[in-house]
């Protein structure tokens, strides 16, 4: 067993945690939910910072935003009455996807978002819901569009100099018809082949605006701009969903370089997008 760890900190304030991270850099490792085995610790790590005592477990609607603390567990999201009433319950639904009751009981929102596994289920969700990410660092606090934190230059700061503290979902998404879909080898398989989240503002049979976010076969969750352009102002019907599916395929083929290894996942994502759109259109009526 590697045994280079010499100190364990339990900061009670975000500022304290960020100060430790900034000072110790790669010699420190953040732990929270406990979904990474202790045996995986790099030998460079000398200090573990357990952030579970930070006051980041809030789930509330406040001043035009749905605010989700980064330390909320997937189980808390899944069971939240507030989230079940938001965007057709898509956040609660997605948090309950895949993996197991134990991982949902331990795993946190922050861990799901900032550990850059392309198959994690929450990034496409928050991307589709136009969320903002609140991040603390040595210079204070920064609120950035969720898509920005998925970019490698920002993503690599987490755990070293940045700490995700909160996700903010805009209030206008509360009435959206949103659906989250995924396909994996098994229902509980964390590593899905394809994840797709659709969020649509549907009124009077018209899709006023739609967001389509796909992940798993791409390095990070990505919005499907071509499909979204087609859907904006279109009739919320099967024809629009089929056109969007075709647009998703074109966009994903370009993004994956038509890789034969990813062809199945790309086709799957197109089908998931169409099905999710049809479901969203029908629930939005």
């Amino acid at each position, binding site marked *: 067993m590697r045994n280079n760890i010499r*100190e*364990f900190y*339990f900061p009670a304030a975000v500022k304290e945690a960020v100060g430790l991270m900034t000072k110790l850099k790669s010699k420190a490792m953040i*732990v929270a939910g406990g979904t990474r*085995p202790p045996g995986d610790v790099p030998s460079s790590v000398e200090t573990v910072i357990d952030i579970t*005592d930070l006051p980041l477990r809030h789930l509330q609607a406040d001043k035009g935003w749905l605010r989700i603390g980064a330390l909320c567990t997937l189980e808390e999201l899944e069971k939240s009455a507030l989230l079940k009433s938001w965007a057709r319950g898509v956040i609660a639904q997605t948090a309950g996807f895949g993996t197991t009751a*134990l991982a949902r*009981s*331990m795993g946190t929102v922050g861990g799901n978002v900032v550990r850059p596994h392309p198959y994690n289920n929450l990034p496409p969700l928050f991307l589709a819901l136009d969320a903002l990410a609140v991040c603390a660092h040595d210079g204070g606090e920064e609120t950035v569009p969720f898509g920005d934190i998925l970019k490698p230059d920002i993503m690599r700061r987490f755990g070293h100099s940045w700490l995700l503290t909160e996700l903010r979902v805009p209030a206008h998404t509360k009435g959206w018809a949103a659906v989250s879909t995924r396909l994996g080898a098994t229902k509980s398989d964390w590593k899905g082949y394809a994840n797709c989240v659709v969020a649509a503002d549907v009124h009077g049979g018209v899709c006023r605006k739609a967001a389509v976010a796909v992940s798993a076969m791409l390095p990070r969750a990505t919005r499907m701009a071509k499909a979204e352009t087609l859907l904006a102002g279109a009739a919320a019907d099967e024809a629009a969903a089929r056109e969007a599916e075709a647009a998703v395929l074109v966009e994903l083929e370009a993004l994956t370089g038509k890789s034969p290894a990813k062809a199945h996942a790309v086709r799957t994502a197109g089908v998931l997008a169409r099905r999710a759109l049809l479901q969203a259109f029908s629930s939005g009526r």
Partner: protein
Amino acid sequence: MAKKTRRGHLKAMDGQFEIELTINGREAKWRVGASESLMNALRRQGFKSVKNGCDNGDCGSCTVLLDGKPAASCMLFAAQAHGRALTTVEGLGTPNDPHTIQRAYAESGGVQCGFCTPGMVLVTKALLDENPRPDEAQVRRALDGNLCRCTGYVKQVQAVLDAAERLRREKK
């Protein structure tokens, strides 16, 4: 001991931390390896109901209750238990006086080789503490992190539903 509001800082001495925790209602001070998993520390301290199945958070055999919530102890550093309350099956009942949930598992035939049983019993405890009247789907969902290679889960599900009914009767 309730979870400490301020747990502070641990410094290793000879590669070990001294942690304070509550284990099955009793306060304790343990010396644990600086990168030792909670599962290994518990087994070393004699809590052999905590099983080493996969060492990767996949099987649920090492489940404990951490401040009342199910947790895979193989995925936690032992030091993460500092200032917190742990429950293992040893804290629920004894062979002579088993807990109602343990009795239900035994009498429903929910135990075969028994390796997964402690984890399942603890998950059941957490479920029934939160929801005394679960339906079958809720029971199956609560148990979905605990693998059993002997059975088809039918008897365990039956045991949980049976335990729920017994506990409700006991409360009346």
